[in-house]
């Protein structure tokens, strides 16, 4: 995962983590170019014949911020204005070559989340894997 993709980790970050992450931007000059707004994204899926179709809409929250002239984009599932804003800020900062100091702190928090997420997923995966069927042949088969 490259550093700019790491904002995806914020989707499953606990609310406390998002608040902690937002404190990193307290002294950073950010302009909110699009305040958080909810809206709908249509989920499009490809069926087994290769036909695209719309399954239904997903409630999302979008926000955008300006940082050193470039716009950071934040879109998250559900109604989550703080998370969308945090993701937009993180997106802007991680794509800006000049913001190395804050990038370091941000990436450190995100890597911490990556570890937590990996542990959560490993626990879930182990539970699921335990339900894998092992067939035994019946006597005489």
């Amino acid at each position: 995962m490259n550093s700019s993709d790491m904002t995806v980790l914020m989707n499953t970050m606990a609310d406390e983590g998002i608040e902690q992450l937002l404190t990193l931007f307290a002294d950073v000059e950010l302009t909110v170019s699009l305040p958080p707004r909810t809206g709908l994204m249509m989920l499009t899926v490809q069926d087994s014949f290769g036909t695209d179709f719309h399954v239904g809409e997903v409630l999302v929250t979008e926000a955008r911020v300006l940082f050193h002239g470039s716009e950071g984009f934040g879109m998250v599932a559900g109604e989550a204005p703080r998370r969308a804003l945090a993701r937009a800020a993180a997106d802007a900062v991680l794509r800006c070559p000049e913001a190395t100091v804050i990038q370091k702190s941000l990436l450190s928090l995100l890597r911490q989340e990556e570890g937590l997420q990996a542990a959560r997923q490993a626990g879930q995966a182990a539970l699921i894997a335990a339900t894998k069927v092992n067939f035994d042949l019946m006597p005489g088969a």
Partner: protein
Amino acid sequence: MGYVAVKGGNEAIEKACQLFAYDRMKGSSHPLGVEQIKEQLYLAVDRVMGEGGLYAPDLASLAIKQSAGDTFEAAFMLRAFRATQQRLGYSLPIDTEKMRIVRRISSAFKDVPGGQILGATSDYTLRLLDFDLLEDDESRRQAFRERLFSDLPADTEIPATFPKVISILRREGLLTEALTAGQQEASVFDITRQPLTFPAARSATLQALARGETGGMLALAYSSMRGYGNIHPTLGELRVGYLPLTVRHPATGEAYVVGEVKVTEAEVLAKMQAGDGPPKFSLGYGLCFGQNEIKAISMAVLDRCTRTANPSSPAEDQEFVLYHTDGIEAMGFCNHWKLPHYVDFLSDLDRLRKSQELAQAGKDREDDDVSA
């Protein structure tokens, strides 16, 4: 009796709404939290999101609470809510092979690449009431969790993605691939923006079925399974898992994952088609929000049924299926019968009385003729 226009009832309606809310809270139990519904009644939440056509677990949970558990009403509320929201765009089309699987089975093959993963299911429970749940509390839950995790084999792993079961048939050329000319389409139909017309495009059919009502779809699919039709399906694969909702980053143009959406996908293999070439299996496809296996299987069966060249039963009639499986429209029409039909009925009553009078007059004349 002449036509009498009436109005009123506002106060009674207001009090009836209040009474409905009161009935939910008049007992001595603790108020039901939305988080509790989301976490503990998640299949109901999934169903409501699927039928409402909106993936929003928090709002679906709220709707279930507000509707006192009526899934039709709850789905209606989600559909109403979505009408208040701006459409921000469409996701990038996602290939479901990228699904993060939590359950995956095949009834067609014993050995499938990646294995049969039962996941979380009630399929093998005995449907006997578990009276222990009457004493559900945190200490029991903790003990259950500890038992569950302590029993896990150490070397268990599942792959990140699984190949499709139907790829086995595809490799051997046993599956019909081509759609008929009428089903090929240049752009994706959106039934939330365009009126449904018939014959419906394949994308429109799938979208309509994806937000169909589970019970209605099951009833029609069941009619086909029982023989009102000629499909004879086998479940090639059933998957439950998470698909990434991916959009294009407005600045970089790269794929940007907004979040994950839980879905159920079903592929049914239906009876062989005899065409110009050698006989092949045909495929029915179903995919819907959340974990709703009955709906996904029913959708796949109905998808295949409605592609039958010469429909011979209601489940094979595309217009019949698509017009009668939308739960919101069906419940709305059913519920509208509760609204005053005083004038309509009065008209029916007048005509009935008049017919009876005419019939009586005719009978009297016949009696007079006979006696004369």
